């Protein structure tokens, strides 16, 4: 397990910029994620949160800026090398391997941990067998950790949505990442599932010592787990602070309200999401 020293920035992003053709999705994004912290990113739809994730995990190539993990430049590296640096993620629209079982999905997550070579696999050497056995046990352990031990033999595509989200987290965690990036993990969850998710995130940080960055719209989840919150708006960072500071920030409220009138921004937040978004906002709007 990597236990990072608290407060040293694990992830540093400087001047990150991404343009799709002429459309600038994000610009001037500076982000510091302290090691061992839970850091939330919020903001209206289309603000560029997912794009920032995609740049960090090398899903897309940034147009400009620097990304450093524990002081090492990782921008420009291919995605699998970034993964080997210890970044794991989930996706806004769950992206499991649908025709593989729960345990197989989690086994793939261990790819970079396994050492046995191609020839050892063919010959079935002792090391290969031990490693496979250990990998299976570990996979089961992580399925258990996220609360779906009974899903090991089910095909991913046949699982209920909530379990798919958990499986995705197990697959990301099993590779021993230093940083776990969750893209809207509570989307489509009911309040009970939301509470379980908060609990899970706290255990990821507490028991596994993994730094967590999450994009989230459910403000109850965000306020419950995050130590710091970065607010995105229209491709740039609007502000950053503790949950208390963000709740009180007029600009944040305006950013959400601005979407409500629907004049600006690429993809307006659905109106019904707004009241659920920030508890104190709810009170002010009433």
């Amino acid at each position, binding site marked *: 397990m990597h236990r990072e020293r608290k407060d040293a920035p694990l992830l540093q992003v400087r001047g990150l910029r991404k343009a799709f053709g002429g459309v600038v999705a994000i610009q001037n994004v500076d982000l510091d994620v302290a090691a061992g912290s839970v850091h939330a990113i919020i903001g209206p739809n289309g603000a560029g949160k997912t794009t920032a994730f995609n740049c960090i995990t090398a899903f897309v190539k940034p147009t400009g800026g620097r990304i450093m993990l524990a002081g090492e430049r990782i921008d420009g590296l291919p995605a699998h090398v970034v993964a080997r640096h210890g970044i794991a993620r989930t996706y806004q629209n769950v992206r499991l391997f649908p025709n593989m079982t729960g345990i197989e999905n989690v086994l793939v997550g261990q790819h970079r941990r396994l050492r046995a070579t191609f020839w050892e696999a063919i010959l079935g050497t002792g090391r*290969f067998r031990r490693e496979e056995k250990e990998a299976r046990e570990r996979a089961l352990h992580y399925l258990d950790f996220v609360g779906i031990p009974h899903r090991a033999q089910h095909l991913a595509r046949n699982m209920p949505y909530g379990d798919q989200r958990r499986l995705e987290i197990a697959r990301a965690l099993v590779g021993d990442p230093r940083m776990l990036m969750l893209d809207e993990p509570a989307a489509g969850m009911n309040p009970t599932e939301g509470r379980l998710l908060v609990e899970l995130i706290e255990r990821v940080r507490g028991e596994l010592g993994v730094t967590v960055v999450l994009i989230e719209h459910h403000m109850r989840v965000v306020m419950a787990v995050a130590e710091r919150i970065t607010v995105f708006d229209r491709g740039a960072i609007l502000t950053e602070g503790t949950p208390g500071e963000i709740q009180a920030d007029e600009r944040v409220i305006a950013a959400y309200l601005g979407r409500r009138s629907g004049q600006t921004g690429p993809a307006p937040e659905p109106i019904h999401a707004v009241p659920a978004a920030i508890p104190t906002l709810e009170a002010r709007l009433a």
Partner: protein
Amino acid sequence: MSFNTVTSSFKVTRRRRSPLMEAVRLGLIAGAALVAFALIGAYSAMDKRAVIEGTVTLSQLASLLIVFAAGHVAARDARSGTSAALLNAVVAGLVAGACLSVLVWLIMAVNLRTTLVAASPALAKALSLGARIASLEALAQLPLIGAASALVGALVGRLPAGAGKAALTGLAAVITAGLFRDVFASMLERLPDLTGPDHEVFGSAGLNPGAAVALFFLAAAFALVRDRLALKRGGVPRSGLSRPGLVLLIAGVVLLPLVTNDFVAQVAMLVALYMLMGMGLNIELGLAGLVDLGFVAFFAVGAYTVALLCSSGPLAIADVSFWVALPVAIVLAAVAGMIFGLPVLRVRGDYLAMATLGLGEIIRVLVLSDALSPYLGGSQGIIEIDHPRLFGWELKSPVALYYLALVLAGVVAFVSLRLQNAKIGRAWLAMREDEDVAQALGIDPVASKLLAYTIGAAFAGAAGAVFAALIGSVYPHSFQLLVSINVLAILVIGGLGSLPGVLVGAIVLIGLPELLREFGEFRYLFYGIALVAMMHVRAEGLWPAAYAKEGVHAS
């Protein structure tokens, strides 16, 4: 997988019609199929072959099956009760039979032969089934037979699921036994005769009628018992390999040439060869999801390597034993795979198919080119390749070479299985499912694709090596695009990603057409129809990988 999208877009949408109209429509469709079948000459060609001796010829059987299917569908679509369903089937059968009657009458009344060569009096005679040509009796019996056949089809469809399946299994067994009389009869000849000369299973032309009935009930009973057992065990098995089935299949494959003749052994040898290639492509396509239409290139590299190293002809560069040349061929094919793979594998998805298509042709063009002809023989090929020797015993009979291919196929299957259940196999599957996500989990896409491509090429090289030893000569025209496409079809028919599927696919696509050679080009017609039908009914393959099976039953 893109094949699934293609096949799922074929869904037929039916407009609501009155049930009787629907039955007439089905009857007309079946009738049109029958008429077409007769007019292309397939009926006459297949009428020479008896399935059940003295009772049913192959063309009669095919016609009966068409109407049988129409009756089956007519009854299934009926929303009302059983009697209405049966009535619909009878109507469909009557209409279908009447279409044939009209054809017979037309043939005799009007001279159609100027445009339709097959519309001869001989055809009319065959279709009159022993009655006087185009007599009233001859014309009337066809709709009646059609109605009876459709009724049987409807009844089978109305049976409880288990019994219906048993009846179909029985029917399939009789047809298979009748169709492949030569294979089974030659096998029975080698076995001790338990029933005595009065009770031969096969007559000189087809199944004996009594044996056909017995076989029908045996197979049906077998299907019933198997269903019961499966139910007892708790429904559908999760794994793609049902153990007893697999054991039977393997036992059959191992013992086959011992109990049959050289021709069958030769066909079996070809099947084994395609299995080798199929397992190679299975790594690329079935596991890693790489569509490769240039697969034959590596087959050619393996074949030419053995040819150059083992030939006693003028082009030989060495005269070593096959056992030395085989590993060299495998390694060279793998190296070729790696060299070709590097530029090609950065291309994604459907473009990969195009890129590899080019590669497959390049090899053939290279061999034929002026620069390489002096070394590789150009279109003259390389001849006089020595047969492999084992402990001073020359492997040259089809049976011996079949076992050689079979042993190699066994090794390749073993390696495939091991890899499938290791880190690399899971990485291949993951890449097939979602390449970006796989990469984000630390899988190097190019490296693992390259490995899949290299191993696939190595397997194809092994097949090529055996091929050269089998034929004793290699020519560029043996390495056509068609070979790659055949291998691809084997995988799709058998079930992508499934090893037993490769075996089943090779038997169905390579073995059966060889055994039906006497029907010339017509067999490809049925081959094509079977492929289309199969993609409708069982797009996941005949012996699908575990996941595809579960998907079908879960949705």
